């Protein structure tokens, strides 16, 4: 970034405070003498605090007072059986759902507060959906560059460089011209990750990233996510029922069941947990492997 840009930015290369909010998504880069908008720099991890989150659908309670704290910059997984509200919790964090009661704080800011309803965010988040949710009418490169082009974050030459760079990060260099229908399940997931990374998100969320993937592809995906953790400074939240995947790459893991969060700890703590709900989940997901012992 040039001097002019640094003048308005904090140590992470992000413009701060009111200026950041005013320029978020609007300021044309040309005014700042840079080929990208101010604020489009390195990611900074954000902290998340979920407080007494309650959500019902048609009178059927799905989240019953969830409390959770996720530290800035950590890889945090939420594991548990299907139908326990893991994805619903994730959708609340990205404001695709509104809670019946309770709230979520991101970097100490109540994201559901009335004055935050339509206010520009001073952090960026992105979500990798279970179905990948790639746009079929667009090529791989167009999918990855969609946000950059729609928000006019950079000039076209820089956008193309960013697309190449993000695809390289997920091991798909040179695949820009492919259509999404030509991709395998694992490649689609990686393109969806590259699309999320194009935002330089402070917070990235994965909804069942290993769903419909074979164990080898799941392992490749885990290595991609671990590689991103080492290279980028962002908070990662993963929702999965794949215990092995979550324990392999997470700093901390939360176990959820229909009554709420039952245990939070490091992978080692989860493995050593004596909580019967956790023991049962670990036993049912690993009993096939133990059968030969």
């Amino acid at each position, binding site marked *: 970034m040039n001097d002019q840009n640094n003048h308005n930015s904090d140590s992470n290369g992000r413009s701060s405070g009111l200026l950041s909010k005013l320029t978020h*998504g609007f300021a044309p880069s040309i005014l700042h003498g840079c080929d990208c908008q101010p604020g489009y720099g390195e990611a900074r991890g954000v902290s998340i605090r979920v407080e007494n989150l309650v959500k019902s659908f048609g009178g059927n309670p799905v989240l019953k007072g969830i409390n959770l704290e996720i530290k800035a910059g950590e890889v945090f997984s939420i594991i548990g059986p299907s139908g326990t509200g893991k994805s619903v919790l994730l*959708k609340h964090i*990205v404001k*695709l759902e509104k809670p019946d009661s309770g709230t979520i704080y991101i970097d100490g800011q109540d994201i559901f507060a009335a004055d935050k309803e339509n206010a520009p965010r001073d952090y960026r*988040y*992105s*979500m990798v*959906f*279970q*179905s990948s*949710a*790639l*746009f079929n009418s667009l090529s791989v490169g167009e999918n990855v560059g*969609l*946000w950059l082009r*729609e*928000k006019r974050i950079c000039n076209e030459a820089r956008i193309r460089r960013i697309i190449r760079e993000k695809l390289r990060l997920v091991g798909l260099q040179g695949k820009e011209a492919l259509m999404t229908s030509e991709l395998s399940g694992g490649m689609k997931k990686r393109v969806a990750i590259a*699309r999320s990374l194009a*935002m330089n998100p402070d917070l990235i969320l994965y909804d069942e990233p290993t769903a419909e993937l074979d164990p080898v592809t799941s392992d490749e995906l885990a290595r991609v996510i671990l590689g991103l953790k080492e290279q980028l400074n962002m908070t990662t939240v993963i929702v999965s029922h794949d215990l092995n995947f979550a324990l392999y790459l997470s700093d901390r893991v939360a176990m959820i069941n229909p009554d709420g969060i039952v245990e939070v700890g490091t992978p080692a703590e989860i493995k050593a947990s004596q909580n019967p709900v956790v023991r049962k989940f670990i036993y049912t997901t690993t009993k096939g492997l133990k059968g030969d012992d």
Partner: protein
Amino acid sequence: MKIFAVLGKRLMDLAQTAGEMVGLFLETVYYFKEAPRNIPAIARQLSEVGIGTLPIAMLMALFIGMVLALQTGAELALYGTQEAIGAIVGLSMVKELGPVMTSLLVAGRVGSSMAAEVGAMEVYEEIDALKTLEISPVRYLAMPRLLACLLAVPALVVFTMIVGIAGGGLIAEINPVIQVPFSVYYDNMIRAIEYQDILKGLLKATVFGGIIAHVGCYVGFKTSGGARGIGRSTTRAVVLSFLMIFIANYFLTRLMM
């Protein structure tokens, strides 16, 4: 008592749907200001609605004009008044059949595909993905479609009017019962049709175009329930568009009389 409860719920649902449709329409119109930076998307939709529909619309118009001339010409010939056929076919094509039949064709061909496409995006979380990318689905999906239909349907109707009238003229000329020369047919038609009639027909087409895009997008956004839901939405969009076109046609005709 139960019947009142059911009736009440139906009315509430209807009011909610009407409110949502008005809300979506206003939001879509609000995003018209973003049209200049969405020209490629609008051009794609214009091509799909306009150029994609043009051949079949012209074929349809040709046969509508021909059958209209055949039916009325034969009747008029009984009384020796078949020279009026130019006015009858011309006015019918310009005021009613051109706008209505073209719009029904577009609703079946394009409205259904809009509902299916947007519905599939809703079901497969692509709309949610747009929201997390801070891209308004209404601006990205509904605005280009509405604008394209508002422009393309009247343009299509101009072609269907011309082709329908030409088809009628052809039958009037060659049918041994009618036998009205094309010059007579043409003069008769020109005397009967006023510029206002053409403008009214095009105004109707514009309104119908708006209905088709709006219904297609609204039904698409409300889709749920996987592949079956997408199928239901497709059918619903066509039926709802047809109904709204017929209802709007009556009121527009009444207003412009």
